[in-house]
């Protein structure tokens, strides 16, 4: 009897979340699909999705893909050695260092990105320093390079954490065994450490790639207003032209890329992205 009543209780407990997620997760997503696939007179059309083919939108999409791929790669190349160094520190030191590397995330990210403007400007801090040392100046503000810098800067912690979390779980005995069996440093890394850390690498890649692909803030702040990413296009459709149908159509295109990167991660990741 008790079993039965407990079961009912549990089901009853799920009701609030069920209603909430239906109303605020499922239905809104369906609405994106609905708006994306209809026109102003509510009849079915593929025009909104096809508008990705227009020169401006297509250019924005390609630029977004290129910049986010490059940033993801740079993040990975920067984060992996760092995660390995952190992993080799003793326990107290490493948890302190990890804290140091995620601490910047507690300062408002718009302001932090804005601060890069001050640093990168033609007469900014970095160029003044370079001038002082009689080195050539760096003119990357309002170019795609500044956007890449902004992406790497903002999303680097998202790459460091998953990789670090996987590395600390690797059994040291496995590594020692490989060394005992005669593998050198490179072989141990290539055959043992890297394959074992792959789930962390993949979830790091999604956690950097998706926000980098879809950002409109970083390009707004560091790219001037001339460089449009696909995120900027969608944002303008919604907030400025109030063209919800076109904006939703472009979002659906964007979601294809998000889903692809999610599927790749899902395949290798055991137990969700946050594990």
């Amino acid at each position, binding site marked *: 009897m008790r079993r039965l009543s407990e079961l009912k209780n549990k089901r009853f407990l*799920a009701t609030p979340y069920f209603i909430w997620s239906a109303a605020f997760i499922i239905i809104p997503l369906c609405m994106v699909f609905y708006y994306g696939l209809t026109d102003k007179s509510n009849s079915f059309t593929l025009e909104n999705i096809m508008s990705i083919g227009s020169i401006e939108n297509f250019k924005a999409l390609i630029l977004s893909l290129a910049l986010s791929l490059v940033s993801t790669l740079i993040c990975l190349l920067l984060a992996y050695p760092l995660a390995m160094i952190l992993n080799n520190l003793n326990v107290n030191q490493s948890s302190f260092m990890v804290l140091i590397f*995620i601490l910047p995330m507690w300062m408002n990210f*718009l*302001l932090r990105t804005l601060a890069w403007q001050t640093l990168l400007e033609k007469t900014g801090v970095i160029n003044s320093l370079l001038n002082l040392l009689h080195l050539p100046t760096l003119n990357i503000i309002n170019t795609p390079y500044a956007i890449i810098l902004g992406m790497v800067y903002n999303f680097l912690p998202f790459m460091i954490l998953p990789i670090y979390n996987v590395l600390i779980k690797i059994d040291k005995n496995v590594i020692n065994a490989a060394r005992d069996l005669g593998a050198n440093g490179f072989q141990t890394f290539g055959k043992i450490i890297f394959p074992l850390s792959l789930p962390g690498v993949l979830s790091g890649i999604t956690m950097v790639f998706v926000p980098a692909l879809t*950002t409109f803030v970083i390009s707004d702040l560091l790219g001037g207003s001339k460089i449009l990413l696909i995120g900027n296009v969608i944002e303008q459709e919604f907030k400025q032209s109030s063209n919800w149908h076109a904006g939703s159509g472009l979002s659906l295109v964007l979601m294809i890329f998000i889903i692809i990167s999610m599927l790749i991660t899902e395949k290798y990741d055991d137990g969700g992205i946050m594990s």
Partner: protein
Amino acid sequence: MKIKLQKIYIGLIFILLYAPIVTLVVLSFNKSKTRAKWGGFTLNWYIELFQNDQIMSALSTTLIIALLSATIATLIGTIASIAINGMKRKWRTFYLGITNIPMLNADIVTGISFMLLFIAIGATFGFTTVLFAHITFNIPYVILSVMPKLKQTNRSTFEAALDLGASPVYAFFKVIFPDILPGVMSGFLLSFTMSLDDFIITHFTKGPGFDTLSTKIYTEVKKGIKPEMYALSTLLFLSVLLLLFLVNRSPRKASMSLKEI
């Protein structure tokens, strides 16, 4: 040599991450109003900050939204976790799948989906719409913090309590709840910080005249940002530092909170 190289590497990344923060702190003491040049040291912006009604009201809105949304999300999320934990595998996968959607989806898509929903039901964009959006994207963080703790709890102790005559609710609060409390707390804190820091979703669900700190900063960026903002962000950063320092005083808790992050 190797150790030295490692230290240099850590140092370089450290500089990359902290250069903007140092810049903001320095700017908050800058007498000249433009970011471009140093006009001498002043504490004026800190005084003017507290007299700036717009920033102060944006700050209080941000805190109220964060506190309310984190509290409600923790409540709904914890109850949902208990329910999901007791479900059959098929249903559990279904619910966790739904829970993953807001976490994995791009913020801009989540943001516009809320905007479309609120337009469809004819809601007035403002406090309520932002609050509902924040609760929604916070719930997954709570569920993902509480679920692992729930899995670790021992079912037999709960059943033992029932056998000894405790009512299910009483047994829950006496036996299970203390075990999952760390997960609930870290879920709450995670939600709170996510809500504080959110810009994109707020941007799409807010109405004219309603601002959180993030959206306020975004509009100011276009018109020229007021130096009071630098002062405020410096103060906020210092309070986080202080908070972490206090938490770190008890080492066990610190390592725990770190793992949750």
